[in-house]
């Protein structure tokens, strides 16, 4: 048996759990995985399906409970309140301390709040943790009308959730389009239209002014920046997330918005690391943001740090960016770089949209060389492997269009639109 102090991982989301699993594959050292939220790893992105009745909460747990014992990964459900980097100990809420050999912060995010009047009222929440879901379920019978504030991924998920349970949903979006910060105009317009088609009261260019409450402190309506009053029994605050590190602010750990790490995911303290949503890259990977709060980057940081801790020191080097989402019935995948407002001399964009169906394909490529830079796809599944290779090699957009069927991943018999797409592209660019 290995009696050295354990690798303590605080947070059992995708980053922390990936690290624990990969470290166990490479090493026999003791591993302790601590989470306040839930004893077992679950898929956070799947919580919406529990509320909608597509899944039970148990379905969101990728491993059966015997998995952890079999792999000798110790689980602990407890709140960590701080740590002592000199003594190499972490503090638990009930007063205990635990010695660590290496300590990894993988504590995720928290929903943003902007000091809106009434934001502390009952039936007002963000949606992030399992506890938020339980709370929403408990309030659900009281909700007939809901207002959601913030036009991003969690906002539209929450809209879909509430809508599926027959609640009337009003969706306030500050910008003139849904997910404006990420999506180019036509892409966002496709989604705006789809959201409306589903019967969501989408209000663009509208901000939250304040939340009104009744005498018992329950939310009962909101007032918008346009001075309108909207009656509701629930307010979802989904204007983004930030690293969940308030409890570390007084420690000697260097933090900015998140815990600052170098490319090896090391913090300023020896044997202390940070991965996932809570980590902020001091020197971000070229073309990428310093904090990337998505599932895939959390997983990659976990894989990388396991290599460093158990084998050879390895820098975090994610491949071409990719992400995906589903907006009601429209599947979205993106690979590489597709800017919402491209700079004309750096990035050219061209899109094809189906005249009736919810299908849109946007190509980003270099204006001079036509080298493929990225793709946004709505309604067509894209084969990651092919796109990954195209983006790493200097593939031109013409070559990509020519070979597009190899890059699709739709089910068999799905209609192939390549001839139309290629013809439209040639029509526009051949002269």
């Amino acid at each position, binding site marked *: 048996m290995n009696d050295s102090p354990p690798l303590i991982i605080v947070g059992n989301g995708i980053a922390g759990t990936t690290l624990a699993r990969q470290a166990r594959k490479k090493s026999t050292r003791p591993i302790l995985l601590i989470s306040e939220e839930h004893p077992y790893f679950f898929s956070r992105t799947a919580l919406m399906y529990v509320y909608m009745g597509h*899944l*039970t909460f148990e379905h969101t747990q990728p491993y059966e409970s015997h998995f952890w014992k079999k792999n000798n990964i110790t689980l602990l459900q407890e709140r960590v309140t701080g740590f002592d980097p000199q003594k190499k100990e972490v503090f638990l809420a009930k007063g205990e301390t635990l010695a660590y050999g290496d300590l990894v912060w993988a504590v995720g995010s928290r929903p943003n709040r902007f000091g809106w009047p009434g934001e502390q009222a009952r039936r007002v929440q963000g949606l992030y943790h399992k506890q938020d879901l339980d709370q929403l379920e408990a309030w659900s019978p009281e909700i007939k009308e809901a207002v959601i504030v913030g036009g991003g991924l969690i906002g539209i998920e929450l809209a879909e959730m509430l809508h599926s349970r027959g609640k009337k949903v009003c969706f306030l979006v500050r910008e003139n389009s849904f997910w404006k910060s990420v999506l180019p105009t036509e892409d966002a317009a496709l989604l705006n239209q789809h959201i409306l088609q589903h019967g969501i009261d989408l209000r663009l260019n509208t901000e939250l002014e304040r939340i009104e409450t009744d005498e018992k402190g329950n939310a009962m309506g909101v007032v918008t920046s346009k001075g309108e009053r909207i009656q509701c029994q629930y307010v979802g605050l989904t204007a983004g997330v930030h690293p969940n590190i308030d409890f570390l602010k007084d420690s000697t750990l260097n933090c900015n918005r998140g815990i600052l790490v170098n490319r090896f995911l090391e913090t300023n303290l020896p044997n202390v690391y940070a991965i996932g949503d809570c980590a902020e890259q001091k020197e971000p990977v070229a073309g990428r943001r310093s904090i990337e709060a998505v599932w895939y980057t959390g997983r990659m940081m976990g894989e990388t740090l396991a290599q460093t801790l158990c084998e050879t020191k390895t820098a975090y080097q994610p491949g071409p960016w990719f992400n*995906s989402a589903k907006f009601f019935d429209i599947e979205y995948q993106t690979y590489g770089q597709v800017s919402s407002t491209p700079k004309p001399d750096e990035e050219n964009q061209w899109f094809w949209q189906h005249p009736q169906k919810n299908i849109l394909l946007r190509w980003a490529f270099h204006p001079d060389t036509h080298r493929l830079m990225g793709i946004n796809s709505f309604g067509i599944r894209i084969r990651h492997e092919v796109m990954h290779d195209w983006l790493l090699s200097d593939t031109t957009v013409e070559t990509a269009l020519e070979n597009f069927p190899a890059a699709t991943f739709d*089910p068999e018999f799905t209609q192939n639109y390549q001839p139309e797409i290629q013809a439209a592209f040639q029509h526009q660019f051949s002269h």
Partner: protein
Amino acid sequence: MNRFTSLSVKSLFTVLGWIGLILLLLPLSNLSSPETWILLASLATLSIGVVGYAYFQYRGELPGIKNNGVFTNSLSARGVWGWSVGVLLTAFYITLYFYPEWLGYRSEGASVGMVALFDPLSQLLNGQPASQWFLYGTLYTLAILVFGVKFLIKYRHSRYQIIRTGSVMFFQLGFAFLLPELLTLLHPDTPYFAKDFKNMWPLNYYFFEDWHVKNMLNGGSLGLFTLGMGLAMIFIISPILTYRYGKRWYCSWVCGCGALAETAGDSFRQLSSKKISVWKLERWMIHVVLVFITLTTLAVLWSFLGSPKNPTGISREIFSYSAIVFFSLLLAAIWFGKRNELHADARFALVGIGVIIIGILCIQLFSGDRHLLGISSYTLRKWYGFGIGAAFSGVLGVGFYPLLGSRVWCRFGCPMAAILGFQQRILSRFRITTNGGQCISCGNCSAYCEMGIDVRSYAQKGQNIVRSSCVGCGICSEVCPRGVLKLENGPVANRTDRPDYPLGNLMDHLDAQ
């Protein structure tokens, strides 16, 4: 149409469906005699009830995945409705298999009650009065058709699902129902043999029984065609199609059991257990059934070939030597060609089963005993017919849809699925490809897998899914919110590779620098 009127229209169709059911059961009481108009009215109202309900259920919604409330609904989540339907279905199957006289079936003289109700349709199709099996076949086919229409409306956004469902509806109506009845009508004097050409051994477990072989041999050109087709299906057509497309060509495109599971059973697909312990149980059970039916069939043929009236000209000895050579070659080919693709327990089982079957054949050959292992083949087949054919595939297989999911029989019992699955695992172009690193471990694919495969456990590792039990229904791919899964046929090599990490992380490139 708003929610309220949609709800009341749906209630109307529910009432219609119940009226159809009551009309169907009416002849069981003494209140009415079985009349043609009752049969027509009953089948019509049942069909309109189901299709109308489905139409108004989905018409107001945009095309897409329709799983809202599946795990909170009483019918689909083992609530009161689920249990009630389970009890009713089970009672129906027990009656059908063991007490058909309660349905009005009479072995002597004309049937009465519910069975007699189906006489006019039976007379029309095959020129004979209805049996309880004609009644069952009609209702079974009707269920596949009407719930098939429901499935088509539900999955109207997916061409794979539309074409696949059209296929199961076509094969059930044409090959399983109409064609055998019409062939009987055209050949009224030939003895009975199974005329559903797609229903091959061992799913049709009596194909090689002495009476069935005799009837085929005495059945004129149609009988010989049936025998030849049956052998061709087992030894030529099925291996080729399974190699090219996986076992889905049969299990979710052609098979009648699969057809019912995919249509009427669709509301219950999510109830199959995904636990690793249940997977272990499944592997034991389905292979034990396969060995049992193989031995039973060998025993039946052994006794048949030994009888003085053996019309085939094939002696027991030739049969035994051929069987020993066949199984030895099969075992050797798998062992030397594919053993590296099998886990230790699968290799152990493979060799164990092969040795048992060959051993028994050898003992038999040299002992010259009249019965295989001293048990009469009649006893063996009676056990199989009762235990597997009736109790497992019918009562448990369909009766327990709302409790254990729609593919209980296919997963734990069907020897056909075992054979096709074995080939799919070691020699087929089929796989479900995982789309690089896009999996978010949400669990929809696993939850909606009717075969209880933990699809996610492969997808989240970026690994392809190559499993013997996969019937290729394609629902995992449909319910995936991130476009991660694709059923496809491709080169056999590297199908089962396991990447170190899902695609997306370049750290290995960096190490190389």
